[in-house]
């Protein structure tokens, strides 16, 4: 089972696909769940405190807006953990989105720099493309080391 970072990180469909084919999806749900379950923090709605943008300094310089650094405090550790990644570009908002285009740029750059296997796909716009999309994801996941159910 490989740890696969999904982009957009909030995509439930992508998360489900990765899990369904036997791997561990790394996405927003994982990062946010950890914060929601942290006892003693009172910072609704995501339990992100002003400490997160400071932690985000590991991934982005101080002149980078606090919202980008706060997001990187969540996604940065997942990027470090990732053994593979699936990137879906031009996705519909309903498929998943991370809100901030600057964070998107930084995450995609970090993934491409990391040297891990990456599958980049364009968001399907019709049924035929949809079938090809799922087939490509399946083939990529099956080819990853550490198994997976093809």
């Amino acid at each position: 089972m490989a740890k696969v970072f999904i982009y957009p990180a909030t995509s439930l469909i992508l998360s489900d696909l990765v899990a369904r084919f036997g791997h561990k999806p790394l996405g927003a749900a994982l990062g946010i769940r950890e914060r929601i379950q942290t006892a003693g923090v009172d910072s609704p709605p995501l339990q992100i405190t002003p400490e997160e943008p400071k932690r985000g300094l590991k991934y982005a310089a101080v002149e980078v807006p606090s919202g980008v650094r706060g997001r990187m405090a969540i996604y940065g550790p997942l990027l470090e953990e990732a053994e593979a990644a699936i990137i879906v570009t031009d996705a519909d908002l309903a498929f998943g989105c991370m809100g901030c285009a600057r964070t998107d740029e930084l995450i995609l750059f970090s993934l491409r720099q990391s040297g891990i296997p990456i599958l980049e796909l364009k968001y399907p716009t019709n049924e035929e493309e949809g079938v090809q999309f799922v087939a490509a994801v399946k083939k990529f996941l099956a080819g990853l080391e550490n198994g997976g159910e093809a």
Partner: protein
Amino acid sequence: MSRKVRIAQLSCGPEYSGVQKEIYDAAESVDAEVFFPDIALADVEQAVDAFGLDVRSADLKLMIARGKALVDGKVDADGVFIGTCFRCAEAAIVRNELRRYIHEHSRLPVVSYSFTERTTAGTLLTRMEALTTIARRRALLAREEQTGITMGVDSGSSTTKAVVMKDNEIVGTGWLPTTEVIKSAEGAVASALEMAGLAREDIQAVGTTGYGRFLIGRHLGADLIQEELTVNSKGAVYLADHQRGASTVIDIGGMDNKAISVLDGIPGTFTMGGICAGASGRFLEMTAKRLGVDITELGPLAMKGMGKNVPMNSYCIVFGTQSLVNALAAGSSREDVAAAACHSVAEQVFEQQLQEIDIKEPVIMVGGTSLIEGLVYAMGQLLQTEILVPPHSQYIGAVGSALLASGFIKGE
């Protein structure tokens, strides 16, 4: 118990900056509630297309769609808070254009703010208070005449001012540097009462404003404790005799600056703050001290000088002071340095704050710094307009408080 004021939040990034709770807390402390306008996902792209600003960040698209829903009347709100991350260029464009759009197409009061992870509820309090005041006290803010005998006290960061008004006239004034907040207020009040020839018991209602408004308000048993954004707007248009129609109020204070776009005496959009003391009256105080003149002499001195002869950037008070010292050491005249200091402060306010509101004439300058004629001249040059400085402009907060307090006289 009055219903909570509903403030629509249009934002990108506060949850991830860890400051969303600060926004909630600031609203809660003025008995308001912040909410995110509900819209359908399908409407987002459509709204962005209609708005015409092609942004890439999805949260900014959502901001635009929510703003449009407010203007189109699909969502009800009493005021709007627009917030985005400091230093994000894309967000700054959306924040500014959305603020302008809402201001032009609705009667909703709007405040915009760019936050960092260090933004606290305290920083946001005055802005939230102003939003709720405009929503909750429209009737009070519509008051155009002072009646009876009332007193206003403005406990500012540099000075404390008191004004006694009787039958729509200012009959007593007093001021002191703010040292011990209550003591300074008592001193200013005593002077104002003495000048008016009245005793404390003669005062029928009291209003307080400024940083020390809560402390002074409790001490004096004030009928009205009000932030300075609405009070100063009211005071400015009252003293300038321009209570109807549009105007712009600029108050360069000792610690922060206020720029307010006013319509019929009620703030529409406003900004408050200052990147640092370099763009405030505090820098001018320091300049006067370094030049060996009283602050009251700085303005006339500046009018004799040529600011262009001295490079000065008061973006930061430390660097501004360095420029000042270097210029004097290089042989620049005191007049030129004074003019450069005034121009620098005016330029900072122009660049940092006046870009965030719509300048509508007349432009009224108020507060103690409006008496520094070199500063008023520099601002006029930058805005290419004649600046109006009403009589008693240094007492603006106190006058506004006294005027509004007359709404609390028994039987009123």
